């Protein structure tokens, strides 16, 4: 029931935040923070209680809630949390707090409706991470789009409407493939057993012909690949991330992209082990392509938010590579990379939002030499930039390292080419710092006036906390790895004996 409480807390809290606007424009943000703090307390309680409760292997959940829902179609309302869900939900709530804090930078009008949409988006993401009925999963998957659409379309920057529509059309269109694939899977299960069911545990055992398995797997893969994003399907991402308000960018990059990676880990491997194994070389090639292509494009950007957006393409290429390498190490690396990327990129989007608020532009051609005026922000930016380039000792390094190590066991060429991503990451990460905070201030059209203010105390504290979290992930990665490992082992066992045998057991 604690999972239902978590969802209801976010949903009702969203309504409460909207209602709180009557008390003044600052109140919705405060209510949202209080709601998220309560949610964080719930998640923390689950995490602390998890060690005793979490049974490795299938059937053991940290928490579970189940009720019949649409009985005639065999659909149940089944929420369940294992270590993987726990890590993702914790990331969601944590970044939710960061997003609400970051919204103080640029959300000053219609704050009530804004915080309502933010909390409902978070509720949708939490639902995605918890749903163990495939139909319920799809409902959350689609439902979280709508509030996110409003966040971009109402409070975004200049070209917000086309970006928002593009975002929804891409994700919803691929979502329809997911729907068709889900229905086909359930129909196949119904044909075999005569039982109508969308339950994850039931469908795991569905025996599919190789051709049907491949097509259905591709339906799932398409939806997750658009969200992740995988390279030829990524073009919605730079637009949506750039046009969204700061808080929206944090949620998009930090949380919504992770639903794609989560879907790959939770569904694609365990449900379609044979088809996924057959498809793995293609997917790994796409992952490697994303790592390099994202990095090259990021380096070429002049818009600071677009630069950060393209780094996501590169970082999530590692996730795709890790998932389809299919070894325990690579899978753990992929999950770890998702958490680390959420924190570091979310923080970089907050930096970009602050720069835009202070300077009135996102064009790096009109920045430069900002360090003397904004030393705190400069130092924090440098920190997150080196985190993004994978400096050992910080979170992203652990994720990328594990992915590469795990991939090496499966395919040396892919690992070798992907490793070049560590070099290209240096290019764009340092270019970001170089073009904004170092160097000379631009001449000519720079208006004479007081230098821009440094980051305020709220933003500084938020960024500092995120910096500490990134450092913690780098220094004590077992915190996350231990939580997720039993769940990932169970998923690999579910996938097939062959996969775990090849991986040689869980790697730490």
């Amino acid at each position, binding site marked *: 029931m604690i999972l239902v409480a978590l969802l209801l807390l976010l949903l009702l809290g969203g309504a409460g935040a909207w209602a709180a606007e009557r008390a003044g424009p600052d109140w919705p943000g405060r209510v949202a923070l209080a709601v998220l703090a309560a949610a964080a307390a719930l998640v923390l309680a689950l995490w602390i209680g998890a060690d005793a409760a979490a049974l490795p292997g299938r059937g053991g959940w940290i928490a579970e809630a189940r009720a019949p829902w649409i009985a005639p179609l065999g659909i149940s309302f089944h929420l369940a949390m294992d270590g993987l869900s726990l890590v993702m939900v914790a990331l969601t709530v944590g970044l939710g707090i960061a997003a609400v804090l970051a919204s103080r930078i640029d959300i000053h009008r219609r704050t009530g409706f804004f915080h309502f949409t933010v909390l409902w988006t978070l509720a949708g993401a939490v639902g995605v991470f918890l749903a163990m009925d495939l139909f319920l999963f799809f409902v959350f998957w689609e439902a979280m789009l709508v509030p996110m659409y409003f966040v971009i*379309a109402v409070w975004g920057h200049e070209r917000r409407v086309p970006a928002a529509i593009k975002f929804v059309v891409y994700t919803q269109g691929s979502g329809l493939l997911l729907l068709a694939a889900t229905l086909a899977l359930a*129909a196949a299960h119904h044909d075999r057993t005569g039982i109508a069911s969308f339950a994850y545990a039931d469908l795991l055992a569905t025996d599919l012909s190789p051709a049907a398995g491949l097509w259905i797997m591709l339906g799932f893969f398409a939806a997750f690949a658009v969200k992740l994003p995988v390279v030829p399907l990524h073009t919605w991402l730079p637009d949506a991330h750039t046009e969204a308000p700061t808080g929206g960018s944090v949620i998009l990059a930090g949380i919504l992209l992770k639903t794609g990676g989560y879907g790959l880990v939770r569904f694609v491997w365990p449900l379609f082990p044979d088809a996924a194994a057959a498809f793995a070389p293609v997917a790994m090639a796409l992952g490697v392509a994303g790592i390099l292509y994202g990095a090259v494009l990021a380096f070429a950007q002049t818009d600071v938010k677009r630069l950060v957006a393209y780094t996501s393409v590169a970082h999530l290429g590692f996730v795709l590579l890790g998932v389809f390498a299919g070894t325990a190490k690579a899978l753990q690396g992929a999950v770890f990379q998702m958490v680390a990327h959420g924190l570091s990129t979310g923080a970089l989007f907050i930096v970009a939002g602050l720069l835009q608020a202070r300077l009135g532009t996102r064009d790096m051609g009109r920045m430069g030499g900002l360090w003397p005026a904004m030393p705190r922000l400069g130092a924090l930016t440098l920190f997150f930039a080196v985190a993004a380039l994978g400096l050992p000792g910080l979170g992203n390094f652990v994720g990328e390292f594990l992915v590469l190590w795990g991939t090496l066991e499966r395919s040396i060429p892919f690992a070798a080419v992907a490793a070049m991503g560590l070099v290209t990451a240096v290019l764009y990460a340092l270019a970001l710092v170089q073009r904004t905070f170092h160097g000379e201030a631009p001449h000519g059209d720079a208006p004479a006036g007081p230098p821009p203010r440094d980051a305020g105390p709220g933003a500084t504290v938020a960024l500092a906390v995120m910096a500490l979290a990134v450092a913690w992930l780098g220094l004590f990665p077992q915190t996350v790895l231990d939580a997720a490992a039993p769940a990932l082992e169970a998923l690999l066992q579910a996938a097939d004996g062959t996969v775990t045998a090849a991986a040689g057991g869980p790697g730490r």
Partner: protein
Amino acid sequence: MSGAALQALLPVIVLAAATVAVLLLAAFHGGHRVVAGATVAGIVLAFAALVPARLAAPQAATPLMMVDGFAVLFGGLILLAALAVAVLSFAWLERREGRAAEFHILLLLAVTGGVVLAASRHFLSFVLGLELLSVALLALIAWPRLEAPALEAGLKYLVMAGASSATLLFGLALLYAATGSMSFAGLALDGSGAAADRAFLIAGIALVLVAAGFKLSLVPFHMWAPDVYQGAPAPVAALIGTVSKGAVLALLLRFLDGADAFALGAPAWILTAMAVLSMLAGNLLALRQDNVKRLLAYSSIAHFGYVLVPVLVGGAFAVEAVAVYLAGYFVTLIGAFAVVGLLPAEGEPGEAAAFADYRGLFWRRPWIAGVFTAMLLSLAGIPLTLGFIAKVYVFAAGVELASWILLAALVVGSMIGLVYYLRLIVTMYAAPDEAAAPGMAPAPLPASGIGLLAALSAALVVLGIYPGPLIALVRALGTLAS
């Protein structure tokens, strides 16, 4: 006629009696409220009469009609839609001057035709029901007889109805020539038919499908829909989109089932082609509209393309899927037209049909804009609305058929659809013009309109989140008796 047959026909009898009663009432006591009240009461009574009809079902009532679970199910859907349209008409007419009694009489006639179609199993009742519906609709469309767009719409509908009736009659004549039967069940080939009979049969069914294509505004017989939707009063447009199209679709299901049409091959191809074309062309053409009523017309073309997919599956699944789909579509479309019809346009009398009327609506009238958003999201098939459940059925049908072309058209059509629904939604949430009419309190909606919108929104969300009872009811009722 036996007592049981009369019992089964009770809903139709009640509707016919109510039509006469309202006619007399209007002659002696022309008050708008009284007439509207009597109309609503008649529809409610007819709906209540479905209970004895259900108890008698399956019951053949004359060779013309078969009152089975299917007829009760679709008759009930049509009557509920008619009830909502009647309430909407009342609220809409309150704003306008002039006599309104005829409006309600025509409404009752159209609904009678629709209920007859849902139970029809014979060419004669097919034509009778269809003409009753079409003639009444024609007069309703042109009801604002001093407005040029309404007259244009009426004329277009007249030409379309005439053409489709002629096509239908020709098709029925061919079918009679091929089989010597005028009942649907007599059309099924027993395998011994000569090749010439088979050709007549296919040609006849094809012509009937064309006539149905006109009525359902399927591509390429869709040209009339945007103009008629735009010119007709909003309640009448809602009536066309729900009662008229729903009744024709129900009839089509029974016809295709009786004639065992898909065994012939060609009819399935014709329907597939019309479905794919409607999904793509309807959605593509809707992209360029800046009039909400035209947009809803094109969206309706696309939606009836979607619903042909479960029709193609046939059998019990088709009945279940079509019924759920229509339930969702009825609620959504009437809700959308209620907003369009009841929201006063900026600065001028009439309906708020232009996109400009919706600019910043959410910040002026959050509840109405919220309701309209929910309706549009339901049309787009977003979860937590009834439209989503409907869309799931359509996709399940596409998966069942394992038809790549239909599934591809569904996905592409839905993606395009999303673009224009979202474009309208974002207009409502755009920043309002600060300069225009500051501080002016918007005119309130009539209470009946508020009640209608509240009821439709509740149905949309409650059944969208918890559709189990609806599905169970549809399964319990929706059986075709031969």
